């Protein structure tokens, strides 16, 4: 199924299952200040440029693992996360670098993660943008590290937001899934549980047309993902995912709905994945011309630049200043990331549990064990390295 590259209209039609969505008098984005509207462009530009820097580093073999792009999807990640407050908690997926940046992740953290540095957010334990920071309530950036099994973050975020409800905290959660993850059991169980419990949770389905190589029509027989909302008894809101203000509008509605105590909303953002699943993917399964059409006719940054210039009256100097700022920040972050080193191997043993804080080193990993080691037969012979056994 070829996908059209000309979705330009804002689709904010609501699907209400058994409930009604409160009428919105005006577009929520109308309340954004000029500075905030320019900031949206900054985040999208930062996302794109940071990924382009990562491509360079990948080609220089400085990225240890795979590289995952969100080219063409920057508006859906940035616009949706922009609807959250700092105290809210967000769980990104692999195309949501933009959302993470909005929530406080920094370019240098992302670069160090990809480069597997010892002072990266996960100290070299996890890949790419699989990192988070939830810390103490109210004093954090509030995003959760994702895991690779898809859909799993929906039940987890149901629990995060259940805790908000139980404690009467004025906080909301937002979890991203792709079109593919909606086929998993975890997605179903998580959104159903959250709906029953009226958890303050927004579930964003990023419909980018493909899950790895599988097109959406092989993923589900549903005509659109908001149709699933009816089955869970929650409102479904849909928007053009390449229109950053339309994305903000529907997500803000859903966030307000959750904050008011009305529970879950399923938001579908329609976008298009212009790169492969990861950098190795040659996209041979994509119909000819499809990618080029989306790039030429429906790029979220190009589209938003038109809005900024024509509706906001943004000057070339203002836009150029954003470009310069992004370039400078990424250059500085790259320099900093390249200065840091790999993790110490022994750090691998730390922090599986709170107690004990460190695992015991295996005896055959002992440096320069020598014959004397075997001859002495210490207490831990053959199992643990008694000499290095942590207290």
């Amino acid at each position: 199924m070829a996908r059209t590259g000309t979705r330009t209209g804002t689709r904010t039609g609501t699907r209400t299952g058994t409930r009604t969505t409160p009428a919105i008098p005006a577009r929520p984005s109308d309340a954004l200040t000029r500075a905030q509207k320019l900031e949206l462009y900054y985040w999208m530009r930062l996302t794109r440029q940071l990924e382009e820097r990562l491509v360079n580093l990948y080609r220089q073999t400085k990225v240890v693992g795979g590289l995952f792009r969100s080219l063409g999807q920057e508006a859906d990640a940035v616009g949706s996360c922009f609807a959250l407050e700092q105290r809210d908690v967000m769980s990104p997926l692999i195309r949501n670098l933009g959302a993470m940046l909005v929530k406080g992740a920094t370019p240098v953290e992302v670069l160090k993660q990809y480069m597997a540095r010892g002072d990266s957010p996960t100290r070299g334990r996890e890949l790419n943008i699989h990192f988070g920071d939830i810390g103490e309530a109210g004093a954090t950036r509030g995003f959760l590290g994702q895991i690779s099994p898809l859909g799993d973050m929906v039940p987890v975020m149901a629990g995060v937001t259940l805790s908000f409800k139980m404690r009467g905290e004025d906080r909301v959660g937002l979890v991203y899934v792709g079109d593919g993850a909606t086929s998993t059991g975890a997605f179903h169980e998580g959104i159903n549980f959250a709906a029953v419990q009226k958890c303050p949770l927004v579930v964003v389905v990023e419909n980018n047309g493909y899950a790895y190589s599988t097109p959406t029509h092989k993923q589900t027989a549903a005509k659109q993902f908001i149709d699933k909302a009816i089955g869970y008894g929650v409102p479904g809101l849909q928007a053009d995912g390449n229109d950053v203000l339309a994305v903000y509008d529907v997500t803000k509605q859903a966030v307000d709905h959750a904050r008011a105590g009305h529970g879950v909303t399923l938001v579908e953002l329609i976008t298009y994945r212009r790169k492969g699943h990861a950098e190795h993917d040659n996209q041979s399964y994509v119909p000819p011309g499809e990618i080029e059409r989306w790039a030429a006719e429906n790029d979220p940054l190009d589209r938003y630049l038109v809005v900024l210039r024509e509706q906001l009256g943004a000057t070339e100097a203002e836009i150029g200043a954003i470009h310069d700022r992004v370039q400078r920040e990424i250059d500085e972050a790259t320099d900093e990331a390249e200065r840091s080193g790999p993790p110490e191997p022994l750090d691998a043993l730390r922090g599986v549990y709170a107690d004990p804080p460190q695992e015991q080193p295996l005896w055959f990993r002992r440096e320069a064990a020598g014959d004397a080691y075997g001859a002495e037969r210490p207490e831990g012979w053959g199992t643990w390295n008694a000499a290095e056994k942590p207290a």
Partner: protein
Amino acid sequence: MSAAKQPTPAAGEITYLEAIREALFEEMARDEQVFCLGEDIGAFGGAFKVTEGLLARFGEQRVIDSPISEIALVGAAAGASHMGMRPVVEMQFIDFLANAYDMLTNYVATARYRAFLPCPMVVRGPSGGYVRGGPFHSQNPEAGFLHTPGLKIVYPATAADAKGLMKAAIRDDDCVLFFEHKYLYRRVKDVMPAGDHVVPIGQARIAREGTDVSIITYASTVWKSLEAAEQLAAEGISVEVLDLRSLAPMDDEAIFRTVKKTNRLLIVHEDTRTGGIAGEITARVSETCFEWLDAPILRVTAADIPLPYAPPLEDYVLPQTSDIVRAVRRLAAY
């Protein structure tokens, strides 16, 4: 099983099941971050009535009847625990832990290591056979989780340990899988120790002192081993029984100590044989206590068979006291 033949309960004794319930009550009263989550645990009080009375005391905010969704239960518990709550999830039968295998092994077990996310949560449920429960209400799936770094596992044999370990599990800062043996629920009783009774996770217990042969075991087969030890004493064989209580972390020092004392080791568990916990204990003892052994390490376990329903079949597959007696005699004669 000797547990079934105990004399009339003394004053103040409560059952293994009541001991777990008492721990839940005390911990929920002590710490308002503790809450219970599960299928039919509220109004109905749970399939085995472990949570009976909790709803009336603590309300439906803290005793949550959930949809039939083991993935969501474990996942939501993880999410809530990241935010400082201490959820206790009931699996209606521990067999259904398999439904949440991904969430436990991929998400929960790795959370602290990969993302520095605390998961102070308990997943508990009725486990084990000898109850004619058939293939899906009798399993002992602990070995699969022992293999996963990041999870703690406890499996008490006595009522006092059931209470003390539950309190320790709820207070632990990592995820604890709490296996409850359903055959023992109403068959074993203890007078609870006074005060705040907490049994530390990771410490085994000598259930019977002996000098000739060691039996290392846990849960239901502790009682069968004690029954066998009693019979063997009449034959002049002195058996020491070590009740592991915690499987992860495992009390290596207690294991090595009893092996070095008796020099003969039998490992008994109700779970199936291949890939079972007895194999792991065998390896650890062999690596560390080889020179102290005077006989091969032997295992009495269930056969490698899905657990059948009919009494003659279930009795044939699961380890029995007579099997243990036979194995100890062989070791003593080696």
